[in-house]
């Protein structure tokens, strides 16, 4: 894990947060030229800043940081909440904003209510099974969770679920599929997370990074 080539290893999520993170690093004066050429590479090293950037699926960022493959990572609060990772959630970077909602088909709103009263349980399709369980547990509602890996919006249309729990930034996708937001579960923003051992062992390097990012 320790290397001559770099001082800190930083996990960057691919997808919509990638550009947000790159911009943030650029604004803080870091050399992001190595991030531009990221196409199929899994990681890259900035020789100038002595940082290694590891590109990964958003859901894997907290895992890399928790397990110490990376000292620092950028992760959405939604992902952190879902994985319940044992990492230090150090900063709210306030960007990459989106919300997690319970949504259902426009026509089904009344039907879902009836169904819950009649059968005492409803079906929820989601990628975020842990958050869904926690949320409905806290409301004291009994549900069945259907885990899907993509296109969750389809579930109510196909009739396999009564409601969905999913993340939405603008609400456009929901509208497109005739879904309406019923409840808001959480607002997610990008968080800077740190491995707890690294935080103690490399605190000078990490504090320096944080101070620059915060500026």
């Amino acid at each position: 894990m320790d290397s001559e080539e770099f001082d800190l290893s930083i996990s960057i999520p691919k997808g919509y947060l990638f550009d947000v993170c790159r911009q943030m690093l650029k604004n803080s004066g870091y050399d992001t030229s190595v991030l531009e050429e990221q196409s199929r590479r899994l990681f890259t090293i900035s020789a100038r800043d002595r940082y290694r950037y590891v590109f990964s699926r958003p859901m894997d960022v907290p895992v890399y940081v928790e397990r110490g493959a990376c000292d620092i990572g950028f992760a959405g609060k939604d992902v952190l909440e879902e994985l319940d990772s044992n990492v230090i959630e150090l900063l709210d970077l306030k960007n990459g904003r989106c919300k997690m909602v319970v949504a259902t088909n426009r026509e089904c709103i009344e039907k879902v209510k009836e169904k819950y009263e009649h059968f005492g349980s409803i079906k929820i399709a989601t990628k975020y099974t842990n958050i869904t369980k926690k949320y409905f547990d806290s409301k004291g509602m009994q549900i069945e969770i259907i885990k899907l890996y993509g296109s969750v919006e389809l579930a109510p249309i196909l009739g396999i679920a009564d409601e969905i729990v999913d993340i939405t930034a603008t609400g456009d996708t929901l509208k497109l599929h005739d879904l309406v937001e019923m409840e808001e579960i959480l607002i997610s923003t990008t968080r800077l997370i740190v491995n707890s051992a690294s935080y103690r062992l490399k605190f000078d390097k990490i504090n320096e990074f944080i101070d620059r990012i915060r500026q």
Partner: protein
Amino acid sequence: MFKENEENLTLMLPFGFRDIFPVEAQERKDIDEALRNEFISWGYGEVKTPIIEYTKNISAGAGTEWKDKLISFFDVDGNIVSLRADMTVPIARLSGMRIKERQLPARFFYFANSFRQSEPQKGQKRVLNQAGLEFIGAKGLAADLEILNILINLLRNSGLKDFKIAIGHVGFFEGIAGWFGPDNEGYETVKKNLISKNYVALKEFLAAIDPAKSEVFMDMIKPAKDFKNIEALCRGIADKKVSASIDYLKQVCSVLDGLGFAENIIIDLSIMRDFGYYSGLIFEIYAPGITEMIGSGGRYDGLLKKFGLDVPATGFAMDVDILHKALEGLISDKSRNISKIILNVETTDYLKTLKFAERLRKDGNIVELIFGFGRDTENISLEKKADFIFRIDFKNNSVLVSDLKNNTLETKSIDEFI
């Protein structure tokens, strides 16, 4: 017709448990031995306690979150019992039961497995292999310094490089809570967020009470090499409990510096533990390349009172599994200096064979017996990492010695060895 169906056992273990094989077990023993020698040289004595205790006793000192992690079941008389989840609580219970005031201070150490529940999907272990010590009836700086000195000795002597002991103080948070306002619920929220390492929620919570103070607090809980920044911030707080805890840490550091341990110490006021019983100095042990905490400890003055002995105490525990990983490559295998001989005989003269083998063992060799020439002795010997194969021919009173390291073959007379 009457033959019973043989039961096919599932070759699996309950999740979170594992077996340990000879190589690991041997290394573990060497680590334990080094720790034991250090403990004994300071006057500590080993204790062993039952694996099972009353749940009521075990949860006496535990934090709320931790209580859910006990592995519990019903005893035959209907009482709820649990597997011990650490050794601090059982030793506090033992001290309350058996130790009289005049016997204090008492110094105990232990090597023990402790058990904690975890979620199957997280794949975490449910057994902790711990080594540690408890210094019962010892108050103040002298005792805290003693256990830190022992801990640093252990880690340094093990060859572990660049390890860090992060030290903090529970009194700091009590002071901070008072500084923000007399609100006990607030203290619990701060504690909860520090334990779950959610600094974002922590800052939000404190900023809602007082934004300026929350900035100061968040700055203070950054790990640091020295007290420069912390002291400057502390002057602005002007709270007795806060400055007393910082002064205490400064005294600890100044003695440890004097002992030449400065490079292994960092000040970290963010340390908070998921146990209800810590009361003063608290610390955590980290090493490069190891992402888990190697161990932790601190003062727990309130715990023993619950077991009827109202005395202060301090101690630490290390996770030997994690320590072992940190020491990988640093452990010198003592047994490698001893020759291992595979004694291969095709005979039923067990008496002669056993006598001859015993002779070789007395000379300091490891001797493993294999009867019959039929088996592939060479391969077995490689598998067993042997140094020599001795093929004995009692009829001709000779031994065919093959030296596996130097690849030589030689016939010797048995008399040469006796």
